[in-house]
């Protein structure tokens, strides 16, 4: 009961807000929430488990394309399409993670960078299946039990996704698994001596967060009702990394702050710098790493209790 109460409050609050917003602001709000979900998952992978991967956004794309292709090219029912989409994400994640986590160093970063690039190539060359360079458009979310979910109600679905993602990651973080992940990040050899199966822990963390990204992508597919290759380019993989670094790697609150800030910054900056907000991101990341490695959340802690 208390468990339900604990998560119900945020769900009601965050989805209630959607009913007060205009259509345009609902759209912005949805995308911001999806970035928060992605940043939370990426923070677990990079900030907590210490794995540098560039594939997180690609899995978002794999999830989005999978569900659209399964629904509208193969005409599968929605639940089956979702389950199969998750299975696809898990299989791709395992195929990348099992060999590359066996090796020391930055092999995962490179293998996932290649995967992210390869994904876009496959999308562009996928012919009728992926819709090539123009992607797939003009579809809409199938009715669920005869109900058509749209407007703020769809935003509420995204809120459920974000809160669900947070709940799963929060519980994992506060368990033997989260501690094993942090131990692997801080000192793999000592972690192994404590009985942590380092390779397995990495593979599980990678697969799990990749699957979460895939699920977020499935929801995203019905935000704009179009999927196309440019959306899932490598730039967004960098942006995700930057969100986590600027917000504060290893902290859930940091990921949320980073995602919200870097998502909203372009809206505020566009009158000043036009489309060149990415330059500001670059400077922010450099400043964070050089001056405040704990990110904005570290700055916040510092202000809260000056020592």
């Amino acid at each position, binding site marked *: 009961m208390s468990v339900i109460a604990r998560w119900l409050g945020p769900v009601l609050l965050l989805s209630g807000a959607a009913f007060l917003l205009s259509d345009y602001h609902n759209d912005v709000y949805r995308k911001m929430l999806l970035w928060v979900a992605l940043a939370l998952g990426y923070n677990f992978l990079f900030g907590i488990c210490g794995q540098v991967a560039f594939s997180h956004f690609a899995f978002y794309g794999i999830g989005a394309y999978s569900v659209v292709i399964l629904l509208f090219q193969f005409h599968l029912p929605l639940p089956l399409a979702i389950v199969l989409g998750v299975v696809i994400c898990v299989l791709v994640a395992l195929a990348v993670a099992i060999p590359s986590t066996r090796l020391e160093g930055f092999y995962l970063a490179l293998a996932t960078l290649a995967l992210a690039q390869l994904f876009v190539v496959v999308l562009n060359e996928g012919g009728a299946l992926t819709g090539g360079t123009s992607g797939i458009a003009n579809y809409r979310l199938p009715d669920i039990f005869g109900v058509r979910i749209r407007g703020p109600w769809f935003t509420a679905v995204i809120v459920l996704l974000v809160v669900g993602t947070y709940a799963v990651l929060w519980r994992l973080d506060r368990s033997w698994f989260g501690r094993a992940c942090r131990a692997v990040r801080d000192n793999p*050899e000592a972690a192994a001596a*404590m009985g942590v199966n380092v390779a397995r822990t990495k593979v599980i963390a990678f697969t799990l967060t990749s699957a979460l990204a895939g699920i977020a992508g499935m929801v995203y597919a019905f935000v704009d009702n179009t999927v196309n290759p440019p959306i899932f380019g490598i730039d967004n993989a960098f942006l995700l990394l930057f969100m986590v670094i600027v917000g504060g790697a290893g902290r859930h609150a940091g990921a949320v702050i980073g995602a919200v800030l870097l998502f909203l910054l372009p809206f505020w900056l566009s009158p000043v710098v036009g489309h060149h907000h990415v330059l500001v991101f670059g400077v922010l990341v450099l400043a964070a790493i050089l001056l405040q490695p704990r990110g904005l959340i570290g700055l916040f802690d510092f202000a809260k209790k000056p020592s």
Partner: protein
Amino acid sequence: MSKAILQVRNLTKRFGGLTAVSDLAFEVREGEILGMIGPNGAGKSTTFNLIAGTYSATEGEVQFSGEPVLGLPPHRIAAKGIMRTFQHNRPFGGMPVIENVMVGAHTRFTSTLWSVVAGYSRKEEIEKRRRAEELVDFVGLGDLRDADVTTLSFGQGRLLEIARALAGEPRLILFDEPAAGLTQDELDRLGGIMRGIAARGIAMLLIEHDMHFLLPLAHRVVVLNFGAKIADGLPGEIRADPAVMDAYLGGSHAAA
């Protein structure tokens, strides 16, 4: 006499042409503190790493409570009940003291990943945290339970290593030069803690350089030189053994 918990037989490690450990045999008995000494390069560290699973042996057999453990990866060896400390402390820098100790209990958790996600693992988590708190108190770091590990002194870091090893509910702890880098006060405290561990029935294998620390503490001592065992006996016998004195005092180190 209690029965052997760790039996090492015929243990050999060659690095290319160099034989670091040759045909070594010894055993550790239940609740016993076994010291292993020898001059630099005698093969102590190699032996340690072979038992802990960080090196693979060229030949030989290691049995832990009757089960072969040689060749298992380090995490499997920890799960069997052999925990270790590091000579250069290796804390998990991003976690407070208590969490570090709880990582040591990793292999003792029974809840599955699914039950964690479903929220059914709270009880076990609380129980293990309470045990970890007891261990932090036991090694005397009670006041620093929630401290950032990067703020600990070297001596405190060594105590954390011990609490972390104990959290794995081991039946044998391997200590890699536990006295190295400690002050006399810290050494006295460490000796007391180790006797306390022995009183709990946990066996210990100490690789050590400092004979002043080791000889009063150990129940039995194995002496290595050039990768082979040259003596094995009570500390008093070792002190009087001419072969040991030769090997050891041949170097610059003074015995007790």
